[in-house]
Structures are given as C-alpha cells and as structure tokens.
C-alpha cells in the first residue's frame, strides 16, 4: 500500500500484536533529525538464484522480525476462488508436513515468538517476531509454513465455520464494511472489487484442490521477499534462505504467468441503508495515484493537510486541519479520516467519515467543498503545505517504531518499488513539494472527476450522486 497518514490496508490475520520497541541510540545524548535520517542503517538486498529476494535492516537489537512478503492477494483471485487467500491464511498455521499443529505451536511458543499473517488486496505476509538468536528456527518454520502446509481435510472443514463466524463478526465493523463496499463499487467488474474475505459461498465451497491450486499458481519465488529487521545479520539470513527456501518454485504450469491487467475505475455509488443503525459511515473517493507514481508524495501531503479527526481529539476548535475545526464548531461528524490506498497501477484517494443521520448533508457539503476544491485544488497556502509536510514526515518516521513495522515496510517496499526507499529519500521528496505542485496534482486527480461513494447506515440525507458529482467543480474556475 500506501505510506499515507492513515494506513488503510485490509489486515486480516489473527494474533496481530504490535509490541512497542523503541530504537535505542547507544551512547548519544541527542541526535538531530537530519543526522538520524542519514545515520539509519542501510537495507541490504540480495537475490537468490530462484528469484527470491532477501532484504534486511540490521539494528543490533535483541529481537527481530522476519517474514515472507508475497505479491499475491484478492486481486489475483477470480470470481470462483475469491476468498482463497484468506482461507489459506487461516489454514497456514494448522500444521505442516514436518510439524503437525501441536508441534508447530509448541515450537513457536517455546521460542517465545509470535507467528502472524495478513492478507490484503495485493500482498500477503507471514511473519514471526522472535529473539534475534532464534532467527534460524524462525526462518525454518516460515519456510515450512509457506512451502509444505499440510491442509488437512478435517482442518479445512473446521475452518469453514471459523471463517463464516469471522465474516459475521466483520459485519459489525462498519468502517471495514464501508471501505469494502467502496472498493466493490469503484472497481466493479474487476478483480480489485473483490473483498479480501471473499463471499460466504467461498467459505462453504472451497476445497483442498482450490487451495493447492492457489499456492501452485502464486507462491513463486520471484514474487516473494524474505524481509527481516532487528538484530539480524544479512549474510546469515541469506545462508538460511539458501538452505530452506531455494526449493521455492519459479516456474509456472504451462508457462501461464499471471499478469495483472489494469483495473477500470467506475464513478458510482453503493448505498446500504439501515435506519436502525445509530451512525452513518460514508466514504467518497476518486481514482488516485499508483504506489510507484511520483504523484504519491503531493497527494500524501494533501491528505496530511486534511488530516483526521475524532470526537475524542482534545484540540477542539484549535485543530490545525480546517475540516476538523469546522467539524467541531458545527458538530458535523463523529470522526473522519483522509486516506489513500495505493495499488500497483491505481489507487483510491478519498475521505471516510462517520456522522449521525442529520449531519450528512452538511458534512458532505463542507467536505467536498473544502477538500476537493477550495483547499486543495485552488487555494492551498504555503503555511498549509508546510504544516502538511511536517505532519507527514512525523507520521512516516513515527510509524517505524519497532522491528515489525520496519520489517513490514521493507517487505512492502520491495514488492512495490523493487527497493527500500530510505527515510532520507522520503524526506527529500517531501521537501520538494510546493503549494503549486499540490494544487496542480490535486486538480489533476480531484477536480471535476467522478467519485465513488459508499455509504452504510441511516443515510437518507445523503444527496443524490449527481449532486455530489457536481460539487466536484465550480463554475467560477
């Protein structure tokens, strides 16, 4: 995804615990921001013969996170097997050929490690957080999970119920529902419209054969990255990978290499009205920039200018984001956040907000008026942009607060960009953004474009799509 202020990635995994580590600077009283950027350890990248890439950042800590990031997700699934990746993630820790479930769990627990996974639309990750000295064992377990997952019929049948229960549970997380529906309508008819969870019929009907098919078509070495961060030695890591992962296949059956075709964005809307719900969740998005596009930085700065807001924010009407100030002063919403989900060739740039049934119209008016035209496309000022840049830099640095976020960063960067983009480079690119660039780029993506609207809850007050669409331009300009 997305290095945006609000990371919006469908993280469907169990046991995702983020332990808080702090980067220890040894023997230094204080380090300036510029110094720390330049002093960050380099991410080393190697490739094996079968195409597997290995990347690591060594920080000399006692703990580490190591994982496999795979370039596969719901976007690679077809209608028939939508949800296979998610199901497979459930099956991943049910035992391998060498270690049945209890043995696998025992191995992990005895190290005191955490074994987790997540699936998103374009990436899947399996990772272990362990002590640095347990790196060899961790890599061995990871390689087994990915290469020789046992996939028992009995486990599959049992997991069906678990997946269905999880589907039921996610219905109550209206933010996820709203954003899922947003993707479904914005990318209708294309694979990006598939939800990561898959429909309930998948949970009921997927067979072992489907899952094995999925693994054989997509778990290929050139699409994988073994990433590690913490107290890891790169050479040691490469050695371990050669031992355990050089058997990963790199050939496709019948030479059928899956190629991602572009996904058409459709300006459209989907409304799930339910007056019994207390609050309405609404998301409005336009087609944004892809992950590797240079336009991403100004768009992230623009999102930082809009910012996010929640009823619990203590700043009240002194918040710097203009939209947040208005939300407080006029009681417009319970929360909002600006997001940018970037995929490999497209993206969704938008805003998601939660409000009660009588403020929807005002919120949309202010939101579209403010976000889309006034502030971003036409009149964003020097001080707004400076504030946004600082907020973005702080967020980028602040997100990397532990070996797991760093490892995740490495994995996703290698998959998206082919290399790890260091903080110093992000910093330089952010510094290069001027108000004129923000205005031009935002006009390019936002001004007079058809948005996709998704709404859940008591949304009677949500205006007709044509009205939202005509709020995307002004007759004055």
């Amino acid at each position, binding site marked *: 995804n997305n290095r945006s202020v609000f990371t919006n990635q469908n993280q469907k995994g169990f046991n995702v615990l983020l332990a808080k580590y702090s980067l220890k600077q040894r023997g230094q009283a204080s380090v300036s921001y510029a110094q720390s950027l330049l002093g960050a350890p380099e991410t080393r990248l190697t490739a094996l013969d079968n195409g597997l890439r290995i990347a690591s950042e060594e920080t000399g800590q006692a703990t580490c996170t190591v994982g496999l990031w795979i370039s596969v997700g719901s976007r690679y699934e077809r209608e028939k097997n939508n*949800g296979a990746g998610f199901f497979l993630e459930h099956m991943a820790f049910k035992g391998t050929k060498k270690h049945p479930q209890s043995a696998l769990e025992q191995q992990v627990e005895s190290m005191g490690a955490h074994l987790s996974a997540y699936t998103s639309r374009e990436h899947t990750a399996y990772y272990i957080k362990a002590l640095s000295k347990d790196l060899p064992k961790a890599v061995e377990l990871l390689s087994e999970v990915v290469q020789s997952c046992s996939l028992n*019929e*009995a486990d599959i*049948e*049992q997991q*069906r*119920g678990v997946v*269905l229960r999880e*589907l*039921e549970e*996610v*219905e109550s997380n209206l933010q996820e*529902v709203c954003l*899922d*529906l947003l993707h*479904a*309508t914005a990318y*209708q*008819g*294309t694979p990006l*419209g598939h*939800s990561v*969870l*898959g*429909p*309930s*019929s998948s*949970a*009921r*009907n997927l067979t072992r054969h489907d899952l094995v098919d999925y693994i054989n078509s997509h778990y290929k070495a050139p699409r994988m990255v073994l990433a590690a961060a913490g107290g890891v030695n790169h050479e040691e890591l490469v050695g371990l990978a050669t031992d355990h992962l050089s058997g990963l296949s790199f050939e496709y059956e019948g030479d059928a290499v899956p190629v991602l*075709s*572009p*996904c*058409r*964005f*459709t300006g*459209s809307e*989907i409304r*799930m009205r339910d007056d019994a719900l207390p609050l309405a969740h609404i998301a409005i998005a336009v*087609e944004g920039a892809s992950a590797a596009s240079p336009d991403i930085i100004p768009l992230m700065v623009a999102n930082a200018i809009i910012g996010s807001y929640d009823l619990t924010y203590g700043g009240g009407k002194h918040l710097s984001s203009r939209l947040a100030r208005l939300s407080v002063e006029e009681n417009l919403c319970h929360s909002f956040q600006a997001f940018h989900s970037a995929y490999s*060739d*497209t993206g969704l740039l938008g805003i998601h907000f939660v409000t009660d049934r009588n403020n929807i119209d005002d919120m949309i008016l202010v939101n579209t008026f403010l976000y889309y035209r006034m502030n971003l496309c036409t009149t964003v000022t020097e001080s707004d942009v400076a504030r946004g840049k600082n907020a973005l830099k702080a967020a980028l640095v602040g997100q990397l607060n532990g070996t797991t976020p760093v490892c995740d960063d490495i994995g996703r960067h290698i998959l998206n960009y082919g290399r790890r983009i260091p903080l110093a480079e992000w910093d330089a690119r952010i510094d290069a953004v001027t108000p004129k660039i923000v205005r031009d780029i935002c006009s390019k993506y936002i001004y*007079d*474009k*058809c948005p996709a609207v998704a709404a859940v809850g008591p949304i009677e007050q949500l205006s007709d799509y044509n009205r939202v669409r005509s709020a995307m331009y002004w007759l004055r300009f």
Partner: protein
Amino acid sequence: MMSVAARSGAFFPYMQATAFAVPGPLKALVPGVVIKGDQILLNPKKTFLCRESLSGQSAKTGPAVTVSINGNGGVRFAHTDIRVPDFSDYRRPEVLDPNKSSQDSSEARRAFSYLLTGAATVVSIYAAKTVVTQFVSSMSASADVLAMSKIEIKLSDIPEGKNMTFKWRGKPLFVRHRTEKEIAAEAAVNLMELRDPQHDKDRVINPTWVIVLGVCTHLGCVPIANAGDFGGYYCPCHGSHYDASGRIRKGPAPLNLEVPYYEFADDDTVMVG
C-alpha cells in the same frame, strides 16, 4: 444464539448458520448433500418456530437465509455476498472493458457530456426566449391595427397636375402628381427665401410624386390643394401658403408639410408607412 440452538435439541441442524461434519477415528466422513440450482425449496407445511434458517445440513450447501422473531434476520450472510450488478448495458463503449483504465477516456467522455449539455442549454435558452417574447409581444398592437398603419396607393389613378387625398393613420395624406413645369420651378427655388429651408430633392424620392401629410403645421387645419399664391396648397384657417413641394412660403405656419416614410414598390405603387 448458540444456547438457544443447544436447547432446541431436534432442531439443532436448522438453528445454526453453518454445520459441519468432522470424521471420527472409526467413522468415515460422509459428504453432505449438495443442493444445486438457484431455487431454495421450502416446505410450507413445516411449522415456523422462533428461528428458522434455510441453510441445509452441511457447510457446503446453499445460501443462508435467517428469519427470527427476537434475533437478527436477513437474506444475506455478509456484505461480501453483495454482488454489484453488471451495468455493461449502460456503459459507454470506451469503458466497457474492465481491463482498461478509465482515465484515458475520461476527458473525452466529459467533453462530450459537457458539449451536449452546453448545446442543449443554448437551445433551451433560445426556446425560452422565444416563448417569452411571444407572450410579451402578444400585448403589443394586433395585426389589424398594424395593417391600418400602412397604405398602398396606385399612382396611375392620379392624373398629372392633380392632388389626391387619402385617409392614413387618421390623418389626410396628399399625393400630388406634379407636371414638369412644377418640378423645375420647385427645384429652382432659392433656399434663402424659405422659412424652413429644404431643397425639393430632399423632400421627394421621385420628383414626379409629392407625398405629404395634409396637416397644416400652424394649428392643424387641412390645407386646400391647388390653391394659394405658390401653386401648391392654401390653408384657409389662418392663410398659410404652401408650394408644390409642400414647403411653407407665406403665412403663420412655421414648418413645411411633413413628409412621411414611403417607398415605391414599383413604378405604379407606393407604400406609405
């Protein structure tokens, strides 16, 4: 939900959204019955209790429809079961292909829409303007009144040297067929002598014909034709003499006789007004 299901005993398979069979150590796994097809068969004679669920007897079968008096009911299991309909019938040709980015054609599509809207707006404004003018102009003079404002005169009826009077717009209109002598005489008049200096050629289009309003410019009487000292008109009320061109020569009138707008449709017909 689960506790109610446990208490229901015999209805247990129907209470859950899913049911699964797990093979035991001695018993082989018997696959559940797979119901194919879109129709859901419901037995209407079966008594309906607090909760019913159309889900079949194994996790593999059919859709889940739940009906409940004191719990959640629904025809859809999760939001991921929502299928966005296929709108291909309504799409423009450039966006029919789901594997092509819609950005490339977006400007062209917008330009077309805006052009169409712009053209329609212009046409509607014009139509509205036409309707409004039609209604507003219905309050102006009607056709019969306007018809009376013009008069068509057949000139061959007027012999040379004679003056004919017509009623036009409520006023007398003099049409005089002048002789060559009269024309030459009027053209030769010195403008310095005239109270209201106007050359004859400025008062006529065709010098043979003089068309003037027969209203004396003094106090509005009708002058008599072929009378007076100058071979033109004489007003009997106060003694104003006009010449053959209708110009004032003697008497109290200040201005020449008024020349209305007229044009010659052909040599024989003149339209005055």
